[in-house]
Structures are given as C-alpha cells and as structure tokens.
C-alpha cells in the first residue's frame, strides 16, 4: 500500500509482519474543504488490503485537522467495523485539540468492540 501525500497531509504506511500490524502514521495538516475526496478512497483501499492485520491509526504527530477531515476517518472506522477488523487509534495527550477531537471517538467503542483508543 502506498503512502499518501496530499497538500500538507502525509500518511505513512508501515507493515510490521512480526506484530501482524498495519501502521498508518499521520502527520502534518489537513485543511482541505473536501478532504473526503482524497481520504475516503485511500482509506477504503487500506481496509480492503489490510488482510488479517490489526490497523494502528497513529494520529499523534498531526498538527491540525479541520472538522471536514473527521467524517472520512469515521467512515473508515465504520468500514472496518463491518469487516470486523481490529483497530487501535493513538492520539496525543499533550495536544489539547487532539484530546477533545479523538477522545470522543470512544463513543464508537459501544458499537464496535474491536476498537481501541489510547492517548500517548
């Protein structure tokens, strides 16, 4: 799976065969008015190609996202839940905006048992 570089947003994909993980390491900024045009097909392809690996969404290096970036991430979580994939989301505890934005994703744990969300 290729990395994504779109304007100031970067998603590095790293496969850890020993741990059976696919790491999606997000960095930079996402402030497009319609980020879902790029992110949704990219993340959808990730879900199709991940196989039986656990997906680790590493968001702690992100400097900024607008609210329009949230729906493609939520739709990705939804797609993974339908496919019964395991997801771990890691966000930064030291960035206030990340605590507010991503801690609230815990609301999906009621719907989706294979979802873990941790602050780092």
């Amino acid at each position, binding site marked *: 799976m290729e990395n994504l570089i779109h304007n100031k947003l970067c998603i590095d994909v790293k496969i850890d065969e020993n741990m059976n993980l696919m790491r999606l390491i997000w960095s930079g900024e996402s402030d497009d008015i319609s980020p879902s045009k790029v992110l949704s097909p990219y993340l959808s392809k990730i879900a199709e190609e991940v196989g039986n690996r656990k997906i680790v969404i590493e968001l702690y290096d992100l400097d900024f996202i*607008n609210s329009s970036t949230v729906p493609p991430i939520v739709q990705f979580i939804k797609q993974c839940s339908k496919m019964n994939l395991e997801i771990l989301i890691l966000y930064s505890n030291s960035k206030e905006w990340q605590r507010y934005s991503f801690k609230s994703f815990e609301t999906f744990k009621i719907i989706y048992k294979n979802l873990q969300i941790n602050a780092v």
Partner: protein
Amino acid sequence: MRKFNFVLEVKPSLNVVSYIRNLIKLFFVGYDLQVIESIQVCSSELIENAIKYRYVEDGEEDSIKISIELDAEQLEIQVSNKYSAKSENLLRLLASIDRIKRSEDFESLYKERLKEIFYSESDTGNRLGLIRIIHECGFKIDYYLSGKTLIIKTRKNIG
C-alpha cells in the same frame, strides 16, 4: 497587555483557510500556544462555513471578513459573509447555532454528531466545526443578520 486587533477581508478560495491560519500564527507569535490554537481552529471553521454558505448576487463583491480581538481578558472572533435569506443551507446553519446555544453539554453534542456521521452514508460533517468551536475551544457563539450580511461571532474569556 495591549489589545490586539486583526482584521482581514479576503476573496474566498481553496487556499484562504490555510493562508489565514498561517497568518494568525505569525501575527500572534509569542502568545500561549493554546490561545493561538484556539484562534486557528475557530477561525478556520468559521471561514470554511463562510465559504460554503455565502451567497453573492451578480455584480456584488464576493468577500469574507474576519476580525480577531484579543486582550488580557477576552478573545473575540467574528466572521462575516453575504447570505441569501432564501437559502436552506443558511436556515440549517442558523438552526444549528441556535441548537448549540441551547445545549449545556457540548461533549454529548459532539459525540451525538459523530454517531450521526457514523450511521450516515453520505454525511459530510456539516455542523461538526461549529460544535468543535464550542466543545474544543470553549467559545460562546452567536449570529447576527445585518442587511445582506451574516455575522457569526464567537467569544471566550481567557483572563
């Protein structure tokens, strides 16, 4: 502490949100990082809204105005744009602000909106930015209609 006043009128474009965020970073250099991030998040979301919901008649100037006032006690951000009273989007936007103003639990409001996005097939996340301004940045929000101009005003105490 001096009072800072940042006023800018811009033509709407795809890059304008990013441009203003960077300008804010430069203008408020030396301020507490959390204050700068609050200004950036709030300004970005309001300008994005203004770009999405503005309405300009033929021959009218298409512009969005942002004003930021910061002193030792208060931070105020105001964004204005032209609107159409007939626009359903405008009515939805104003209804959303009214709903946010009535709410006392912004975290629940944010989570509820996340669930709506989860269960929808095509939700683009409208209104999430407004809730973010309140929940994440701690602003109060209100709006005013003046002639053909919609003004969204946010305010928070920082003292």
